[in-house]
């Protein structure tokens, strides 16, 4: 069935406390839907994929729109912080540029005024653009529900397409990022059908940091992939290869191949599985070249964005 004009009917309530939200979720169960930015919720309601009778707006819950950073505890991002606010925050720009790059790759500026980091993770699309960066940066999501507050690593939060670890009555209040590692560099490379504005056909985050304990390369890597598996995934074998493969000449190639192996893409309307796997290979290679250049030659490196040249 084609999407309907306008939204179906529902009741709307603006929650003013976390307790409010928990109570409403427990009372209404699956008939309640959470509203942060609305940029996923409303199109899905038009498509009849979601049919909440009650929409609970959590943007006014204290703390959900706050960002805080300190050198000890790292970054705490309220679940309803918009991507534009996140990407323009001076502490995020200075200490978590990978998050900025990922946020700026989502949709369009006007969508990013409303879309939220929390929403992107809770929507749990395999193509969630914020997830690879969150995985690389060891993010934890903070949830509040019947059992009070709890934290879950982001890798354990997204369980399947559209499925998260949220218990009934639970909702996301914040996403926490530990202090950034000294000297780290990262990049998020997104391939879409348009040069910008599209969902990811493949999204690749590559993140590296100096680690003196590693005698082989002196670095460690995190590599995370979107849109090539049921959930956004890390590629641990690729990370190992990039850090530890003794043969320098084919180290990055080995890592790229391992990343391609770690992907389990499918055919869909945007692209085929075969192409996706190849793009993982090529884009991880690009990302690794960029990051290793940044790590090895602090004054050098080149700018990589959407389809730009490699050195």
């Amino acid at each position, binding site marked *: 069935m084609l999407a309907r004009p306008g*939204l179906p009917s529902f009741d709307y309530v603006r929650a003013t406390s976390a307790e409010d939200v928990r109570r409403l979720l427990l009372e209404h169960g699956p008939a309640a839907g959470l509203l942060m*930015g*609305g940029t996923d919720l409303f199109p899905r309601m038009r498509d009849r994929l979601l049919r909440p009778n009650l*929409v609970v707006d959590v943007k006014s819950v204290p703390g959900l729109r706050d960002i805080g950073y300190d050198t000890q505890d790292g970054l705490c991002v309220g679940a309803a912080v918009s991507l534009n606010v996140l990407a323009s925050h001076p502490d995020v720009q200075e200490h978590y540029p990978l998050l900025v790059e990922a946020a700026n790759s989502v949709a369009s*500026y006007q969508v990013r*005024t409303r879309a939220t980091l929390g929403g992107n993770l809770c929507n749990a699309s395999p193509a969630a653009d914020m997830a690879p960066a969150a995985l690389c940066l060891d993010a934890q999501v903070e949830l509040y529900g019947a059992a009070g507050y709890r934290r879950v690593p982001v890798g354990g939060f997204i369980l399947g397409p559209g499925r998260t670890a949220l218990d009934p009555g639970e909702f996301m209040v914040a996403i926490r990022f530990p202090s950034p590692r000294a000297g780290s560099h990262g990049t998020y490379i997104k391939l879409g059908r348009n040069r910008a504005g599209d969902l990811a056909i493949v999204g690749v985050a590559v993140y590296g940091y100096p680690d003196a304990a590693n005698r082989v390369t002196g670095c460690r890597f995190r590599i995370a992939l979107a849109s090539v598996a049921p959930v956004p995934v890390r590629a641990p074998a690729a990370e190992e290869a990039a850090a530890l493969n003794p043969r320098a000449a084919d180290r990055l190639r080995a890592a790229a191949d391992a990343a391609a192996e770690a992907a389990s893409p499918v055919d869909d309307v945007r692209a085929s599985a075969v192409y996706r796997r190849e793009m993982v290979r090529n884009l991880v290679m690009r990302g690794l070249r960029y990051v290793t250049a940044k790590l090895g030659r602090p004054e050098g490196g080149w700018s990589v964005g959407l389809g730009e040249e490699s050195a």
Partner: protein
Amino acid sequence: MSRQAISLTVNGAPERLEVESSLTLLQMLRERLALIGTKNGCEAGECGACTVLMDGEPVNACLVLAVEAEGCEVLTVEGLAPSGQLSALQTAFSEHNAVQCGFCTPGMLISAYALLKRNAHPTELEIREALVGNLCRCTGYVRIVEAVQAAAGESALS
């Protein structure tokens, strides 16, 4: 379905209305306030024809509920030239032939207006990236980019 009273400012004028929960900001502007400059092109946040400013930032009005705009300041294309005097952007669009069918123009102007407010001297790439969410089928974007550059240049002089 619940109804509630909301108060907000639209183009500088205070408005108080009773709206259904499911009424979008786009529907409210067009159907309740007869501000027809903002257009319905897709209702999915993809085309940008419904772009308005909410507290100074561009949003797709089709993805915002009217109730969410409670207490906010909304600016639509009608608010760009309140006294009839065209803004530099509007004049530039006109003079550079950045307008053909005109349907994308209101949303395009609002996005461009917001861009120049946050970045007075954008590069060509920054202009194009800022307008990614405003689709145009007629112009090929060439004159739109030129018009934004011209308006930015104008403000550099003044």
